[in-house]
């Protein structure tokens, strides 16, 4: 059963009406072509209107839509072959951070790495809600260095409400793990593409999000804190999440306008969850196009450009 967000409901109602009308038409053998056409147009119009006027908070809601494609969904749809690789070779295999080699159209072997969320209660717990522990970040770095060794590009898919704030995570150095990843990703000799596919929360996202191209899917968010936590800290209440989302300017459009990402990957109208196949096809096309450009660059030039890009981020008064 589909989960409906508040602003999806009027559209779903019309869609339901359309189905009913078609059923009735068949059962009673009447011609409803004209009505069906006008209703179809009406639905399309409503969709366009709704989705071009979403508030920032509504984008956040879309980014967390329970039907949204997750890391493995994209990998499965983009790759003919995929071999998952587990473990950080030190402590554990973090189920919230996944990765492995995949093949794209026989053209590219790619190291895919990403946070993985679960689809039902049991899976969500198994995946720790997409919140990696330090071993997740260390596993990711191990996979990146392996990709570098075999001269294969890296694609990171980011979807996390944050790095896990737990007792063991602190004992095992969550901060150190993320810091090391951020620094070492700058020096990777292979092309790195990072795509925010859902939630990009703070250091937990950035820990696998330093790249030559950082892209956001259209209905995602990326910021230093979630609107809820921001509300609780700055407004000292959980009730200002809408205002916090507005203030944080955390959507793909905001981030692109502020020069903090390199581009946006458009989603099917209504969101990636309505047509995951199309969303993955678009993502694959973008990855291929960008990889061709990045592979043509000199290694050191690519690293220097990566460093320079982040060097320019920030607004100061002198």
């Amino acid at each position, binding site marked *: 059963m589909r989960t409906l967000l508040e602003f999806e409901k009027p559209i779903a109602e019309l869609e339901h009406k359309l189905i009913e009308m078609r059923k009735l038409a068949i059962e009673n053998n009447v011609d409803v072509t004209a009505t069906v056409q006008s209703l179809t147009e009406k639905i399309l119009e409503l969709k366009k209107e709704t989705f071009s006027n979403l508030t920032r908070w509504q984008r956040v809601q879309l980014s967390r839509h329970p039907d949204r494609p997750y890391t493995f969904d994209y990998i499965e749809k983009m790759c003919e072959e995929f071999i998952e690789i587990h473990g950080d070779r030190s402590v554990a295999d973090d189920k919230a951070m996944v990765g492995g080699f995949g093949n794209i159209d026989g053209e590219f072997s790619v190291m895919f790495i990403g946070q993985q969320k679960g689809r039902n209660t049991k899976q969500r717990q198994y995946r720790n809600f997409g919140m990696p522990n330090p071993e997740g970040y260390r596993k990711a770095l191990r996979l990146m260095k392996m990709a570098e060794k075999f001269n294969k590009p890296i694609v990171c898919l980011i979807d996390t409400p944050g*790095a*896990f*704030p*737990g*007792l063991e*995570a*602190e*004992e*095992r*150095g*969550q*901060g*150190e793990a*993320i*810091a*090391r990843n*951020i*620094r*070492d990703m*700058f*020096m990777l000799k292979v092309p790195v593409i990072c795509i925010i596919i859902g939630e990009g929360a*703070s*250091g937990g996202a*950035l*820990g696998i999000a*330093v790249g030559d191209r950082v892209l956001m899917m259209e209905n995602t968010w*990326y*910021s*230093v*804190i979630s609107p809820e936590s*921001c509300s609780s*800290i*700055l*407004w000292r209440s959980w009730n200002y999440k809408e*205002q*916090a989302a507005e*203030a*944080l*300017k*955390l959507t793909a459009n*905001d*981030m692109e306008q*502020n020069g*903090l990402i390199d581009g946006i990957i458009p989603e099917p109208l209504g969101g990636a969850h309505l047509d995951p196949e199309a969303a993955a096809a678009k993502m694959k096309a973008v990855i291929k196009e960008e990889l061709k450009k990045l592979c043509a660059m000199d290694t050191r030039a690519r690293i220097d450009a*990566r*460093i320079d890009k*982040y*060097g320019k*981020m*920030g*607004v*100061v*008064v*002198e």
Partner: protein
Amino acid sequence: MSWFTRKDKGIQTPTEFKREAPDGLWYQCPSCKKAIHTREHRLFAYTCSSCNYHEKIGSQDYFELLFDQTRYTELDALMSSGDPLNFVDTKNYPDRVKATELKTGLKDAVRSAYGEMNGLPITIAAMDFSFIGGSMGSVVGEKIARAIDYSLEHKQPFLMISRSGGARMMEAGFSLMQMAKTSARLALLDEAKIPYISLLTDPTTGGVTASFAMLGDFNIAEPGALIGFAGPRVIRETIGKDLPKGFQSADFVLEHGFLDFIVDRKDLKDKLTSLLGMLQK
């Protein structure tokens, strides 16, 4: 010879080497409540002579403690914050910054400078917790990045003294990217094999821990410093239990293998000098 023992030899204190006590002549230790003469407190590098509590001092104090004769040249002293997001919560961000500037006399939460430490050229960046919780926005990131550039250009060690609650929310995405910006420069410093010492002081958490503070060739801490990624409150809420005593203290972090050593502030200058001296020989 440690900095601490110099007081017995009646070293002359430079005139700029002064710190107003909140209570005139006497400083009361917040930990053991002992009243200490401010002159004595200063001579003990703002640590308690009774319980060794390390007072949360700022950039100016560290510059005075570490640079020879308090001679140093500050970098980017006038750089201040913009308001790229027109951020408004319960206050306008620029108003918040202005009020903090007036209250603290600082331009932002970090100051950077170069000079000599026992004759060794060094670049130091030190954070000020009094400026919006030592939070990292564009200015903090940019000043640290440029301080690292200075170390790179002049091939001299870089010392980062962190004291921060983490990201500056009012700069949202810009704040986050400072973690990447500073780490990128540290990757270059690392590549050039120039020593980087990261001193973590009380408290060092969030995005600062998850970037430059944990990236030292040497990660060292002051005694009793709270060091972590997530803050204690968030962890408590996540696990629904009280945290064990000493959780996220410098001792705890050392015990778990993420610090090279803990250093008493009274020994800081000389210990750093010895360490860097060994690297240069």
